[in-house]
């Protein structure tokens, strides 16, 4: 099976406190640690496991700048055979639809049976996979947490309310967005990264993909982020202050009063 996995380089929120810059137009990016979007990592692991079972190859693709190459290499170190960087000055500022359009053009240049994305990324929109499927006229399933390969189709589970799982049969080619927890992504060591350090990663720009950058980049974006701001705290929590001992004392009083201690 030929599998394409769409990945994104994002600030690692587990490692960083996100702060807003003084102009309020972006987050403070100077000291951020970047890594591959958590959901995408599960998608790549799943693709590798499928190919291990039924054969084929895994290609990881991203829309981004030169710095995005590092996440492609990381995923190739996990075991993806090919990388593909979609990069063009004109792609800058693309919204979800623009990004999906760029990816759709890349899909059409290849011959993939299955396309995976992470269920969502840093902006929490969870939109690119579903848009991509619609542009390609492929069937789609989101929040997928199990995949079983069958002849010409897949049996997939979607995570739904209450920890339940909806099971579907879906025809290939299709697009699936992958939920975390579907597998246990393998560890990537320095050695693995070194092994793929010199593998060439092809780059495609707008003209290579046969698209007009002005139709997918910032100028074409219909959804525009105007700024970043800290959410209003509302009343917020009463923050307990003082020494640890004092804090614990106050907290225990609260717990007693509210029935938290038996």
């Amino acid at each position, binding site marked *: 099976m030929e599998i394409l996995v769409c990945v994104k380089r994002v*600030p690692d929120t*587990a490692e960083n*406190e*996100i702060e807003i810059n003084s102009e309020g137009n972006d987050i403070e990016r100077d000291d951020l640690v970047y890594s591959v979007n958590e959901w995408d990592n599960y998608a790549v692991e799943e693709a590798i496991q499928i190919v291990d079972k039924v054969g084929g190859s895994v290609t990881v693709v991203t829309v981004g700048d030169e710095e995005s190459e590092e996440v492609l290499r990381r995923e190739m170190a996990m075991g993806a055979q090919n990388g593909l960087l979609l990069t063009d000055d004109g792609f800058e500022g693309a919204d*979800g*639809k623009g990004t*999906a359009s760029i990816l759709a053009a890349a899909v059409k240049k290849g011959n993939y049976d299955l396309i995976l994305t992470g269920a969502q990324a*840093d*902006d*929490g*929109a*969870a*939109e*690119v*996979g*579903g*848009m991509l499927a*619609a542009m390609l006229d492929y*069937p*789609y*399933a*989101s*929040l997928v947490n199990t995949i079983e390969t069958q002849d010409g189709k897949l049996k997939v*589970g979607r995570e*739904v*309310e*209450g*920890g339940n*799982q*909806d099971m*579907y*049969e*879906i025809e290939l080619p*299709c697009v699936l967005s992958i939920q*975390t927890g579907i597998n*246990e992504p393998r560890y990537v060591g320095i050695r693995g990264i070194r092994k793929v350090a010199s593998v060439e990663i092809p780059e495609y720009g707008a003209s290579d993909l046969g698209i007009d950058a002005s139709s997918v980049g910032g100028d074409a974006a*219909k*959804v*525009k*982020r*105007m700024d*970043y701001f*800290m*959410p209003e*705290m509302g009343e917020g*929590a*009463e*923050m*307990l202050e003082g020494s*640890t001992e004092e804090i*614990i*004392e106050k*907290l*225990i009083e*609260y*717990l007693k009063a*509210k*029935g*938290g*201690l038996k």
Partner: protein
Amino acid sequence: MADIFAYIEHNQGVAEDSALELLTAAKKISPDAAVTAIVMGSGGDLDKVCNEMAASYNAVWKIDNAAFSFPDAEAARKALVNILPGDCVLLVPHAHLGMDLSPGLSIKMDSTFISDIVDVEGLDGNTLKVIRQEFAGQVSTHVHADIANGAVVNVRPGVFQPDESKAGGGEVVDKSGDLGDVSVKRKYLETVEAEAGEVDITKSEVLVSVGRGVEEEDNIETIFDLAEAMGADVSCSRPIVDAKWLEKPRQVGTSGQTVKPKVYMALGISGSFQHMGGVKGNPFIVAVNKNPKAPIFQVADVGVEADILEFVPELTEKIKEL
């Protein structure tokens, strides 16, 4: 102003809470707009939901088809493209169905998709001004969207007050004949119910809930120690289950369990809306987190800025001394 529609999620003849929240969101987009409820399903319970919605919405479109005996986004997308006016605004709850349905629907309708909005500032000509969150709720953004060609807007459940005014008095219109071809390449097989765990956290009065801040599997033990000292049960957030450190039935959230304790201790949990969506019944919430900007502090009653790995063992000791 284009027509506004709301996609009604329902279960066993009862509309979900989101049904009347969408009406509030619609009125914030345009106070005078006529808002139509879209109720899709099959047979029996459908009329009940339609009548319930007619009291609140200006009109109800009933769509009765065997293809919707189970809420299938692939089939619903094809039907909606056929029946909705091209430049309308459709509001959909940003839940498991909406995430499946809406992004692709916006492409098929050639309209603008706006995901997971938490507030509406208003409509200025063809520009819809909304508020979203990014980075798991750590920061908010003002978003301006061009909706001249219509829009599909996913609305976060639980953030808009439900519109209980029942000022609709709408008529139920049967649109079932206008669907066209709703055949799809994805077939629903069955729903596998969640397995029961060793404890039923939905019944717990006091929950000690652990999140990513616990850092390592070995540290989970300290959480159980605290729970034992308090006489509480242990629950957790999603990353703990993803890492297989605790079993799925202990997960609190929209994709896990809905709990209704008296006291909820959130330890090293950032407090994403998916997690808090599973905490009901207005419990007393204590949050301990080393990140003072963690969204959990906005919803907690009492907060402690601390590393749980240091704080929890000390708290446990003190409680044991009582």
